[in-house]
């Protein structure tokens, strides 16, 4: 960067002040954030995902996720030509149709494949921050909850570690933290979104397949997107009110 001294002297303190205000305190203290003004969700654009695994690594770095547990992960589906030509003959055999792999959650990407037949697509998954969440219903002590701004959070000081919520989640996104021995899961980077930043996974995604959305914000681009695209949620039959919307989700995704 070739800047003269005057520009540096102005820019550095300005950037430092901007950054410190971003870091300032909790949402109750931060004057800019009102919980009732937001209803957070996420948009995942399936055709854009290339399975690079940046989001999985970024989430682990940002949130200190232990190895072997995943707050978000990527699955690769392979629907074979035979399945597509014989929809009436498909035995719903979870072992073969379609082929799904998620090597270490997609953290180091996926193995190269040269088999051009059939269709492939990547499905990033995470906590769906359900509006009618099954995991918050089953907690015996009230340690997990839907916050007023739509994010499902875990109070790790209150959690007993009974793992009832881990079993209850239909999307398999919760786990017991191997060191803290309490329930843990994606917090939608609550500590970032309350300060005006986006989530770590969205920040790291190189193709823009993941986008944080605020359904209560009239200026959010999601409203325009919803007018022109059709979106789906995972496991709609569970009626969880999931707020992670998928564009172009294939019917074979489980």
């Amino acid at each position, binding site marked *: 960067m070739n800047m003269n001294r005057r520009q540096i002297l102005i820019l550095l303190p300005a950037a430092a002040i901007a950054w410190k205000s971003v870091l300032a305190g909790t949402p109750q203290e931060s004057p800019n954030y009102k919980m009732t003004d937001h209803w957070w969700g996420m948009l995942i654009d399936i055709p854009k995902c290339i399975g690079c695994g940046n989001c999985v690594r970024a989430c682990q770095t940002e949130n200190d996720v232990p190895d072997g*547990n995943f707050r978000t992960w990527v699955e690769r589906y392979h629907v074979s030509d035979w399945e597509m030509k014989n929809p009436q003959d498909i035995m719903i055999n979870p072992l073969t149709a379609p082929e*799904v*792999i*998620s090597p270490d959650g997609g953290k180091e990407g996926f193995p190269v494949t040269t088999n051009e037949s059939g269709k492939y697509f990547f499905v990033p998954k995470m906590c769906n921050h359900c509006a009618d969440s099954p995991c918050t219903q089953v907690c015996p002590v009230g340690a997990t909850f839907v916050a007023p701004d739509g994010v499902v959070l875990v109070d790790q000081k209150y959690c007993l570690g009974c793992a009832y919520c881990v*079993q209850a989640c239909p999307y*398999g996104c919760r*786990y017991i933290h191997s060191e803290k021995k309490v329930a843990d899961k994606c917090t939608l980077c609550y500590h970032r979104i309350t300060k005006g930043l986006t989530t770590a996974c969205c920040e790291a995604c190189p193709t823009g397949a993941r986008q944080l959305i605020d359904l209560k914000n009239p200026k959010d681009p999601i409203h325009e997107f919803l007018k022109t695209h059709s979106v789906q949620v995972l496991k709609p039959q569970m009626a969880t009110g999931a707020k992670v919307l998928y564009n172009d989700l294939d019917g074979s995704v489980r």
Partner: protein
Amino acid sequence: MNGVEGFMYPNEYGLQWSVLIVLYPFITGLVAGAFILASLVRIFRSNHRANLPPGAAHRAFVPVGCAVAVAVTSGPS
């Protein structure tokens, strides 16, 4: 993931579903069985202590103790 055929969600690897699927009906059976046996006492208006062999009251706790031990040790690992 090793030893998994087909696909299982990455976080559910810690849950040992194969143990839980067997354990829950077992516990349900214990509870239902205890209810049935307790109701049989009423049906046949049994004179409790006289009709049973000696030590029966203590031995009745053995299956309950086993069930509790299995449930506790097969919890989240």
